[in-house]
């Protein structure tokens, strides 16, 4: 599996969004993209996903391939059951989803009993679990996460981070986040995007997912937050 490399720069009409930069996603590694609001993090993710961005992008994405996407909005279709939502990709491609695999993945995200429920009956954390199962069943590299946990309460967020780290281990992951603590817990690589471009940030030496209260995680979180404040100023 080749790495995925985006090179180029982008403008919103005539205003530069980000200068020429190079973003590489390594095989089997979790890369977090951190940065202040409006700097183009989600635009980068959408360029890699091949989604419309509304910006003028000059550059290219090498090694682009079908991705799996999970966003802040779980994006569950209210008229489909949990199991049908997990199998959405197959449904949309006119394929048959393997019911055993759907059951297995729902069990792995801890929703084995809720497969026949409709999304309206789920909590925010449960919806994101369904979205995670729907992402996993696609079996894609890269997995693109666009602030997937930011709408959750603190406890659900920690649990979802652990679950995602466990189930996405070994995959090429790009996570856009504005939470330095989340990046410090989960990442193999951390990139900071500012209007000056992309810079690699130090990552704790221990393997992810790291405990939220480990000293090296707290130190990394504080350092990242400091740079974020510096970037926003």
């Amino acid at each position, binding site marked *: 599996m080749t790495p995925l490399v985006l090179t180029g720069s982008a403008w919103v009409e005539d205003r530069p969004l980000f200068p020429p930069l190079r973003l590489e996603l390594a095989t089997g590694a979790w890369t977090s993209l951190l940065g202040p609001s409006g700097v183009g993090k989600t635009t980068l993710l959408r360029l890699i996903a091949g989604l419309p961005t509304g910006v003028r992008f000059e550059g290219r994405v090498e090694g682009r391939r079908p991705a799996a996407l999970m*966003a802040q909005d779980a994006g569950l*279709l209210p008229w489909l059951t949990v199991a049908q939502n997990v199998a959405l990709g197959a449904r*949309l*491609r006119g394929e048959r989803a393997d019911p055993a695999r759907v059951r297995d993945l729902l069990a792995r995200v801890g929703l084995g009993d809720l497969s026949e429920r409709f999304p309206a009956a789920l909590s925010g954390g449960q919806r994101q679990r369904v979205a995670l199962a729907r992402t996993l069943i696609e079996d894609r590299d890269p997995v693109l996460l666009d602030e997937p946990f930011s709408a959750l309460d603190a406890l659900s967020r920690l649990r979802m981070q652990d679950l995602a780290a466990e189930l996405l281990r070994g995959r090429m992951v790009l996570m856009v986040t504005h939470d330095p603590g989340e990046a410090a817990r989960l990442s193999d690589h951390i990139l900071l995007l500012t209007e000056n471009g992309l810079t690699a940030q130090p990552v704790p030496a221990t393997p992810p997912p790291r405990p939220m209260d480990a000293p090296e995680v707290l130190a990394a979180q504080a350092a990242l937050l400091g740079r974020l404040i510096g970037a926003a100023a």
Partner: protein
Amino acid sequence: MKFARPVLTVAALLGLWQGVIVLAGLPPFLLPGPLAVAEALWRYRADLAWATLRTATEIIAGFGLGAALGIAVALLTSALPRVGAALRPVLLVSQTIPIFALAPILTLWLGYGMAPKIAVTVLITFFPVASAFLDGLGRTPAAWLDLAQVMGASRWRVMTRIRIPAALPALGIGLTIAAVYAPVGAVIGEWVGGSEGLGALMIHANGRMRIDLVFACLVVVTGLALAFHAAVARLVAARFARYG
């Protein structure tokens, strides 16, 4: 208890109506009281029932065809934006022409049978259905469309599996609004030409100064419209609720 308040309101209004007539000494050929209307409802029950059957048939046929046309127009406009752009002025103009002006022409073209009444009903019902459904088709949450694209869905499947189901609640609103207008369309059609249906009965009664029968027709038309609206609203709620 839920109905107590509206029933009281209606009873009070009917009482006021009867009271005004008695106190002002209005002759029944100008304004019949509720008792006179009730008497006319009973005396002409056979004519009214027959006319109601006729009008209800026109309402159901016109609403069905109008809804189908509205759905087709919305889908076509949404799937083929260029066709939609060409169609839009025509649709808009069709709604600016007063239906009262169009009804005699339709009678001229389609004769005195049911066809022109159904045509008027179609003209009056398709527009709310088309515009509400089209609006819904254009409001699919971006997150769902992103997912579909990343998952490799074809345009056709995005339409049938996501955009159409996501627009069903909006379609439901359009259908419910159209259900209010459908009886109006049928009655206008009957006014203009023909000898059957509640509209025709009303016009004839008016010509013979049978104002009590005119009012009886109005009562039946109102009841019919309310019942039809309630039926459509129920159907919409039962079928489309889970898409909301």
